[in-house]
């Protein structure tokens, strides 16, 4: 990437821009409604601005005053890709506030769901990345691989998008795993591991792809920290931060925090490929050591609680949920999705890129703008 094109703190804010190329909110390279204004000179992006809010629904406002169980179900509607992590985090907030112990078996099944969802999210990311790259064959094959994960999610959760597995105190009875389901999960992840290995090998050895993605859309480690980037996008710059390490639910599992050093599109794509293998590792451990026992703890009582917050590692990064409980109803709800903190990095990554690479530079940060739009809070000034 051309370092001279990066805007530093010393650069005057109002610079003379030759042309603006607005892309979106409806665009073939964007699977969600967002708009990126690219300020270009001779097809090189000098500055970028991303506008979201097209799909605003204000779910936090809708959650206010709802019974906590209903509010938890509503959080699944925030995102169609990582719906499970939203409901899980929302349930964790209630469990933390009400000091509820969750049975170990339920914890394991929640982990299996979370990691299957991470797999499907990362595979969707890789498929979409390849589509924007123009490599339709890899894109199609990744969607084909992802289908296995979607079927496993449907088998456990009952649906392909919103599974509704975690409930306060455990999981829903329909998500209980019997031997047949465990066997199917094992077969599925074995298939996935083989196909992903083949894909990774071919992807890395393709010189045309490597030429497109190496050294493009670079986010340096110090800039990533300054821009408060989170999740795999941050880890792709070399920062080994993974909230799963801090979550007690993940304590029984052995996994590595994957990092890459370059912070470019290649690092981001490889980051997700390698993280998929870690997710497979976690799922394998979970099904091999699945504890016996109950899946729900019903011995808890509703009470008023102060504002309680919880962070989890969503597929895209740090996910924050907080609310208070009053008469069993949700108050002061705030949700912050990873993409909103990553928007700064998306704009930054575009600078210095060719226009064709700009959408890819945005996509490398794995944006979920619909997720961001639905949960964003408008503050009256």
């Amino acid at each position: 990437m051309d370092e001279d094109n990066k805007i530093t703190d010393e650069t005057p804010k109002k610079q003379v821009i030759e042309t603006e190329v607005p892309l979106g909110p409806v665009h073939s390279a964007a699977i969600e409604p967002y708009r990126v204004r690219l300020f270009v000179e001779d097809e090189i992006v000098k500055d970028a601005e991303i506008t979201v809010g097209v799909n605003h629904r204000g779910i936090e406002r809708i959650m206010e005053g709802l019974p906590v169980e209903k509010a938890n179900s509503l959080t699944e509607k925030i995102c169609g890709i990582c719906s499970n992590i939203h409901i899980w985090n929302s349930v964790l907030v209630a469990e933390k506030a009400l000091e509820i112990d969750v049975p170990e078996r339920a914890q394991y099944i929640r982990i299996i769901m979370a990691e299957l969802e991470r797999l499907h999210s990362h595979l969707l990311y890789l498929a979409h990345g390849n589509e924007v790259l123009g490599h339709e064959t890899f894109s199609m094959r990744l969607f084909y691989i992802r289908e296995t994960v979607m079927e496993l999610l449907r088998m456990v959760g009952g649906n392909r998008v919103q599974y509704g597995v975690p409930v306060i105190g455990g999981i829903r009875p329909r998500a209980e795993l019997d031997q047949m389901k465990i066997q199917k999960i094992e077969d599925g992840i074995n298939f996935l591991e083989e196909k992903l290995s083949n894909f990774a090998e071919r992807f890395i050895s393709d010189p045309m792809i490597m030429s497109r993605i190496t050294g493009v859309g670079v986010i340096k480690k110090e800039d990533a920290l300054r821009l408060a980037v989170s999740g795999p996008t941050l880890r792709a710059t070399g920062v080994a931060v993974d909230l799963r390490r801090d979550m007690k639910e993940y304590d029984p599992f052995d996994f590595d925090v994957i990092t890459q050093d370059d912070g470019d599109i290649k690092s981001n794509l490889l980051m997700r490929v390698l993280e998929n293998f870690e997710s497979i590792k976690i799922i394998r451990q979970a099904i091999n050591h699945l504890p016996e026992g109950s899946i729900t703890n019903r011995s808890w009582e509703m009470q008023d609680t102060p504002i309680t917050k919880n962070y989890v590692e969503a597929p895209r990064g740090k996910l924050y949920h907080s609310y208070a409980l009053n008469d069993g109803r949700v108050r002061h709800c705030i949700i912050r999705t990873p993409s909103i903190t990553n928007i700064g990095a998306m704009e930054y990554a575009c600078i210095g890129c060719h226009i064709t690479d700009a959408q890819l530079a945005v996509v490398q940060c794995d944006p979920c703008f619909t997720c961001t739009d639905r949960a964003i809070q408008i503050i009256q000034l």
Partner: protein
Amino acid sequence: MTVVDSLIALIAVIGTLIVAFVVSVWLPGIERKFVQARIQQRIGPPISSPGLMAPIKFFFKQIINPNSPMPGLYNSLPIIGIIITILLLIIVMPQLYFLAAFASVVALVGLLKVEEILYMFMGSLSKSVLSIRMPFPDLVKGAKHTDVPRSFVEELSSMRAFRLIAFGSFPIYIAIFVPVAMAGSIFLNDIVAYQQLHGPVLFTLGGILGAIVFFVGFMILLNEYPFAILKTKADVIEGPLLEYASKYRAYVYISRGLLIFVLSSIFATLFLGLPPSILSWTILLNIVVTLAFTIIMAIVSAFSPIFTYKQFYPVVAGVSILGVLAIIASFL
């Protein structure tokens, strides 16, 4: 030339055009169904859909005026494209070699250049709604830069078309001159006659190199992946063709299929000495060459990402150098 000869020539020209049209409507289907869908492990569209049924469907769609400063001219450009493609095919037919200068590689190059320029006009005449500025968030809510001149995505592709005219089409023009160097003539009848005497140009070192260069040029001219910088999904989407709807889009589809057949026929004429003519069984070889080009192009496209200038310039430069080597080898 007697009246009977003229009539036979006329029938041959019309017959060859009909064969070209019939073959060309199946080519996009073969490309997408038989090759790309198979590689991508998906069902793909019905084979008749992309080249035949889609244009028929578009012919019966409601005509929508494009968002263009000159809609009449913009809509007429695909028709001009079809006319140029037909002219290119007529030039290489042996029945019209008596036209001398018109049946030469200079005429071929000239018409191909016009075909390329059309994209530039299309791009500059299209102003799709996709690039219209949204004033509220841009200007009121503290945008980074306000009042910056806006570029439509089609303008961007128009500029790219201009660059393609400047450098992107080098390979195909260099490759066209390989048989010229061997035959020592720019006239097509001389080139065909030379190959009937000495065997096809393709079976020489210069011919093999020239064929590779021609194929790359063929893909660039057709804006196929990985050279599809005029219609990159990641930025300009369909580029110059974005605003075409109804029967005008049908013309675009027909024109593309026909261009595949015509460029393949040009290759068969220049490198194999087999001009397309319904009066000879070699028309079958023309069709085979067309199918081979379509299949190879589809395979290359399926396994390639889209190039940006960073990849495009070196590939064009490298292939052009190969073309120059082919010409040198032709002289030896």
